[in-house]
C-alpha cells in the first residue's frame, strides 16, 4: 500500500496534535490558567509563542485548549454519526411513514441555521462540556442522516438485502450486517470532514461566548480573548486561529486519502 506524501503529512500533523493533547500535562511548559509573564509578550525562549492578554503562556494554553477542542469535536461527531447513521438506516429499512416522519423532521431542523439554534439552546441550557457535546452532536446528526440514508438507499435495493428479507431476518441483522458494512466506507471518509466542522463549530461558539467557558482554554475562546490585541498590532489572536486552520487541513488530507483508497478498492477512482 503506497501512502501519498500529502496523506503522510496529514497523518503526521494530526497525530502530533493528538499526542500533544493527550500528554498535555507532561508537555505543556506552564499551567493553562496562571499568569506567567507580562501582558502580550513577544515570543521568547521563556514563552515560545508569547503571552496572552493577562500574561498566560499561549503555547501552554494552546496545548490544553487542543485537549478540550478536540475532545468536544470528537464527542459530538461520534454522537452525530451514531445517531444520524442509525436513524438514516432505520428510515430506509422501515420505509413508508417512518421514513417520511424522520426525513421531514430533519428537513425542518436543516432549514433553520444551525448556529442560531445552537445559540438559543445553549443560552437556555446549563453550560457544561457534555451539554455542548450533545447539542452539537444532535444538530450535526441531520447531515449524517441525509448522507447515510442516501448511501443505505443504494445498498438496500441490492438483491442480497432482499435475500435477507426473504430469509426472514430481523431489522437489526439487515441494518448492522447487510447494510452497515457496505455503507461504512463513505461514512468513514465523511467522519473526518464532520470532525473538522465540529472543530470549527465549537470554535465559533466559544468565540461568541457560549462554548467553553473561562478559565478553561479552547482555541476559539483564545481568539476571542486576544482579538482586541489585533488593534495594537499584537498577533496573539492569530496563533490559535492558525492552529485551527492547520488541524483542519491535515485532517482533510487524511480524509481525502481514505476516500480515494477505499473507492479504488471497489474499482472506482484508482490510486
Amino acid at each position: 500500500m503506497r501512502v501519498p506524501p500529502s496523506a503522510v503529512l496529514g497523518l503526521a500533523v494530526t497525530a502530533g496534535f493528538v499526542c500533544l493533547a493527550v500528554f498535555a500535562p507532561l508537555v505543556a511548559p506552564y499551567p493553562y490558567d496562571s499568569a506567567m509573564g507580562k501582558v502580550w509578550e513577544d515570543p521568547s525562549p521563556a514563552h515560545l509563542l508569547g503571552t496572552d492578554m493577562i500574561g498566560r503562556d499561549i503555547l501552554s494554553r494552546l496545548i490544553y485548549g487542543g485537549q478540550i477542542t478536540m475532545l468536544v469535536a470528537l464527542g459530538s461527531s461520534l454522537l452525530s454519526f451514531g445517531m444520524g447513521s442509525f436513524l438514516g438506516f432505520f428510515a430506509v429499512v422501515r420505509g413508508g411513514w417512518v421514513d417520511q416522519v424522520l426525513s421531514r423532521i430533519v428537513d425542518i431542523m436543516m432549514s433553520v441555521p444551525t448556529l442560531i439554534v445552537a445559540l438559543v439552546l445553549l443560552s437556555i441550557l446549563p453550560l457544561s462540556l457534555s451539554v455542548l457535546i450533545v447539542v452539537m452532536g444532535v444538530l450535526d446528526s441531520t447531515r449524517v442522516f441525509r448522507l447515510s440514508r442516501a448511501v443505505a438507499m443504494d445498498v438496500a435495493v441490492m438483491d442480497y438485502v432482499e435475500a435477507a428479507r426473504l430469509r426472514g431476518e430481523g431489522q437489526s441483522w439487515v441494518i448492522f450486517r447487510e447494510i452497515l458494512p457496505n455503507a461504512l466506507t463513505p461514512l468513514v471518509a465523511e467522519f473526518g470532514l464532520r470532525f473538522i466542522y465540529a472543530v470549527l463549530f465549537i470554535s465559533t461558539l466559544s468565540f461568541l461566548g457560549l462554548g467553553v467557558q473561562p478559565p478553561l482554554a479552547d482555541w476559539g475562546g483564545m481568539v476571542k480573548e486576544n482579538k482586541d490585541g489585533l488593534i495594537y498590532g499584537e498577533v496573539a489572536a492569530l496563533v490559535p486561529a492558525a492552529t485551527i486552520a492547520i488541524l483542519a487541513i491535515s485532517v482533510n488530507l487524511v480524509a481525502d486519502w481514505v476516500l480515494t483508497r477505499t473507492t479504488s478498492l471497489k474499482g472506482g477512482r484508482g490510486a
Partner: protein
Amino acid sequence: MPDSLVLDISGLVIEATSYPPGARPRDVTLVHGVDLKLQRGRVLGLIGESGAGKSTIGLSAMSYGRGGARLTGGEIQVNGREIRLASPAELRALRGREVTYVSQSAAASFNPARRLMDQVIETSVSHRYMNRRQAEDHAIGLFRKLGLPDPETFGNRYPHQVSGGQLQRAMTAMALCPGPDLVVFDEPTTALDVTTQIGVLRAIKDAIRDSHVAALYITHDLAVVAQISDEIMVLRHGRMVEHGTCDQIINHPREPYTRALVSVRALNHVEKPPEPAIVRIDAVSARYRGTQSDVLTDVSMDVAAGQTLAIVGESGSGKSTLARVITGLLPPKSGQVWFDGRTLSRALAGRSRRDLREVQMIYQMADTAMNPRHTVDTIIGRPLQFYFGMKGAEKSHRVAELLDQIELGSDFGKRFPAELSGGQKQRVCIARALAAKPKVIICDEVTSALDPLVADGILKLLLKLQAEARMAYLFITHDLATVQAIADKVAVMHRGRVVRYGAKGDVLTPPFDDYTDLLLSSVPKMEIGWLDRTIKLREAAQ
C-alpha cells in the same frame, strides 16, 4: 478498391494493471499476440466467453484501450496506416470517420437529453465531412434502410421515445452515417429480446452488405455470429483458439474448445411423468403500487413436486413479477398461492419461518445477490444458523458438505464474493438456497448472465441436485435452449398472461398459437442461413 485490406492487426499485445483487493497492483496481459486481417465488405465474428478479450481487441481497431487497458505491442494498421502509436490528432481524424463503433447498450450510450438526429449526425458534421443538411438526408436514408418507422421524422424523437430495438438500429445508423471503412459491432443484440433481435440482426446484415464496409462483429453467441459473418475467430483468455470461415467453424470445428461452444446448446432433459403439485398459483392478478395497469392478469399454474416448471417470455412479460408474488414481496391484487397443502400469506410479513425456509430464491446477478463484505462461510452458514440454529463445528461441517455438493472445495469458505468467478458465485448462491432445505427454489434467469459453457455447468448441477433432494424448480428464463435443457413443464407468458401452458413436449410441438410461434422461431439456430430462411418464411406468410 474492392476487397482492399482495411484492418491489419499483427502480434497485438494489450496489458492492464489490476488492483486485487488487499494486494499490490500488478500488470496483467489481456491479449497475447493476436493477428487479424479484414477486407472491405467482409464481416469477421469475434467470439468467446467474457474475459476472452473480444471487446478489447475490437476497440484496439480504434487504438483505444478501455478502463486503463494499454496497447503495448504489435501493429495495428487501418487503411495501411499504423495507428497504435498515433497522435491524439490523428486518432480524432480516424475515430468516427474511418472506424466507428456500435455498443451493446444503446440505451446507456445515447444522451437522453438530445434528439436522435443530432446524435446520429454528430460525428459526420464535426469531422466536416458533410454539412448538416447533407448529413440529415444521409441519416434519413439510413433510417429507411434499417427499417425504422417514419424515417423522415424518426430523428426528431428523444432516446426514451423509441424501443430498445429501434435504438439499437439508430446506433447502427450513427455508426454508418460518416461512411466509415470499418465498423466495430460490440454485442449489438445481446441486450434485446429474441423477437426483437431477429429484426435488428437482419437490419445490420443488410446495412453492412449495402454500404460495403468491413465489420468486426463481437458476440458470445455463436448462433448469432453464424448468421452474419463470413469468418469467425474464436478467442479464449486473450489468445486465438481457431480462425476459419463461418462454415468451417460451425460445421467442422477443429479445436476441442470450439466443439464445446458449438454443441453447448445440445443439453436435453427428458421430461418426468406428472406428479402432484406442490405450488399452485390460482388466478393471480397483480399490479405495482401507484400504477393503474395489471402486470399479471389471471395467472394460474402448478409446480409439481420434484419437477421443473419453466416460465418463458420476453422482458416485460411479468415473469419476475410472478416470482415476487410467490415469495410475498408483492402481495397480489387477487388470487392465491397454495404451497404444500396450505395457503401462503399474501405478504412477506405474514409468513411463518417454515414458509420462508421452504421457498428459496436464486437471482440472476450473483454479484448483487451476495453481500460483498461477507465470506462464503457466512453466506452459506447464515441460513443454517437462522433456520436450524446450527453453531460451531456442526455448522462448519454442514457448510463444507454444501460446498462439496456444489462442486467447490471447502477452502472456498474463506473467500469473499469478489474472489470468485461468475459461475462460482452462482454456485454459492445455489448452496445458500440449498442450505435451507427448501421444497421449491425459484430460479430467476440464473444462467443468463453467464457464459454458455459455465451456464451448462450450472444447469447440470441444478439437475443433479434436483435428483438428489427432490426439490421443485420454478425456472424463469427467456432462453429456450435452457428450457429444453431443464424443464418438465413450460408456461409461455406474454404481457402478463399465460398464453400457453403444459408439458414441455406439448408446448414446444406445433400447432402453436401466434406468440409462441413467433418466440420459438426467433431463437437463432446454430445453422448458417437460418436468419435468411426465417425472414423469407415470415415474409411469405404475410
